[in-house]
């Protein structure tokens, strides 16, 4: 089973959002991959692989899950990808151009 999700955090799949994504992926038994639609996915449990995709804010990714808890895993990963970064300013995760801006409140 799979799901296509638009990435909401300003930083895309980097730093904090990526760490949250990988941590979530590691909580499930299901085999999970993530990638751009039409391309082969990478292991969702690997920080290296996930940040290596260099997915930016606003891009769409496809998550594929196989296993008993696949549906729950997809829900959890979608939640990470659609939650703006928490915190007071999100400075560390925003692009240089939005130095003073950053994440909206969740």
């Amino acid at each position, binding site marked *: 089973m799979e799901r296509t999700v638009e990435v909401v955090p300003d*930083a895309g799949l*980097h730093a904090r959002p990526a760490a949250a994504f990988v941590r979530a992926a590691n909580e499930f038994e299901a085999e999970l991959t993530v990638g751009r639609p039409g391309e082969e996915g990478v*292991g969702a449990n690997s*920080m*290296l*692989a996930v940040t290596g995709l260099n997915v930016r804010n606003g891009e769409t990714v496809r998550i594929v899950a196989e296993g008993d808890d696949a549906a729950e895993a997809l829900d959890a990963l979608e939640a990470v990808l659609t939650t703006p970064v928490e915190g007071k*300013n999100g400075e*560390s995760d925003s*692009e240089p151009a939005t130095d003073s801006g950053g994440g909206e409140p969740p």
Partner: protein
Amino acid sequence: MRTLSGVGTTPLSGVGRARWYRPEAALSLPERPDPETVDPEAEVERVERARDEAREALAVARDRTADRVGADEAAVFEAHRQFLDDPQLVGDIEDAVADGTLAEHAVADRFAEAVAQFEGLEGRMAERADDLRDVRDRLLRALLGIDAVDLAALPSETVLLAERLTPSDTAELDPDAVAGIVTATGGRTAHAAIIARALSIPAVVGVGDGLATVDEGVDVLVDGEAGEVVVDPDERRRASAGGVEAPVRTERVHTADGRAVEVAANVGRVAELGPAAERGADGVGLFRTEFLFLDRATPPDEDEQYEAITAALAAFPDDRVVVRTLDVGGDKPVPYLDTPTETNPFLGRRGIRPSLDEHADLFETQLRVLLRATASDHGDGLAVMFPMVARVEEVEAALDRIEAVAEDLDAAGIDHAMPELGAMVETPAAAFLADELADRLDFLSIGTNDLTQYVMAADRENEGVATLHDPLHPAVLRAIDRTAEATGRTDAWIGMCGEMAGDPALTELLVGLGLDELSASSVTVPAVKARVRETDADDAAALAERALACQTREGVLDVLDRS
């Protein structure tokens, strides 16, 4: 003295002794042994132990950063832990070790591939390379049994130089010991820069290869405002940095040839009074009373204001305390005052204007407080000044108000005296009317930030006109000169409050322009006093003449040898 340029990421300055941080240099790997001689099982165990150790160290760094800086900044260490436990990386390392590679080489090799994946890319991807190096070095240090340089225990007044600093390096630094950070790589939004900013450590990043030419042990000035690194700075450059303190002098100072120049402090809150006195300020040149009114739901009552004013007088029992009456509006809206929205707030209802009109009641209360305070202990040091005056009529109206309040107090049998009275010269109009204003008052004080804004028609807050907003422009200098000269023809004294008065590099010029008093943030008081003592009044006057004759800002900079 030579200067390197980079990107200033913390707008503070500091001076200290250069110390190189080269974590990579210590991590020299052993020779690659013959795979036959390596015990794969033992190596797997070593990798496991190193990962455990690194994981613990990361937890410490995360907690320390969360504690000292903030949860947002600490989150980067969660990303580091994810790299440490990355199944792909760990799997590759374990495979290599199983094939007879020494743990150190397995880690170095696999991380080199991962770093290469991100290296040379822009922005976020380059930061990931830094994160990976950070994790790799932790693992290698653990494997090699090398303690990292203890960044948390650097000697005081250290300027730390490094090719790059990881976020965990930066978070370990003790802001009290580290006078500055300079790195060859990095940008404003790198995590290390963000943490340095949060720790208030002066920092310049992205200096480039030139940094390598700076030797261990030399004195370095880090100017995070200008993005400059000055190697072996001269005295004047040192004096302009907050890092090196001129000796504190509590006594009044004179120029070398005996002209008295008062050096006072600008103060916004009662809590700032003690530090100002400790730094040897000759009283308060500007007490900004608006801080009593901001950040609250209702105006402060008479007693509360009285306490603040008498606290200021008590902090400077032998000195003058110049209290500026309420200066709100413009960039300082006060919610309960129902300030109207204006098209050009800086040209609108601000300074003395609302006090004489829609906020006459607040003004009257404040004048009552100030007059009462003259009868308190040390009340004879009180002076009162009116902000952003543009017309003689405004000063006359303000004087009428204070006379009226004095009569009320007389009628009520409340002790009081008339304080010294003055006005701020912030508008070109006030500079042109300085003669007439000074005739009616005891003193004038030039507010250079606003005066520059209005003379140059350049909004202080607008970065698009930042180069126009420069008090060293001849037009501004001539406005200052005109004000000082006109005041000099009267019995009034002339002071200056504002950033310009606090720049020790400009002290000679300002003395030359004829100012009797300079009032600056208390941090710069010792340096300004030191400069006054070195100044010769005749030389200063000649310098001012040359500056006033310039047609351009660049000309002034040449005269001041600041180009």
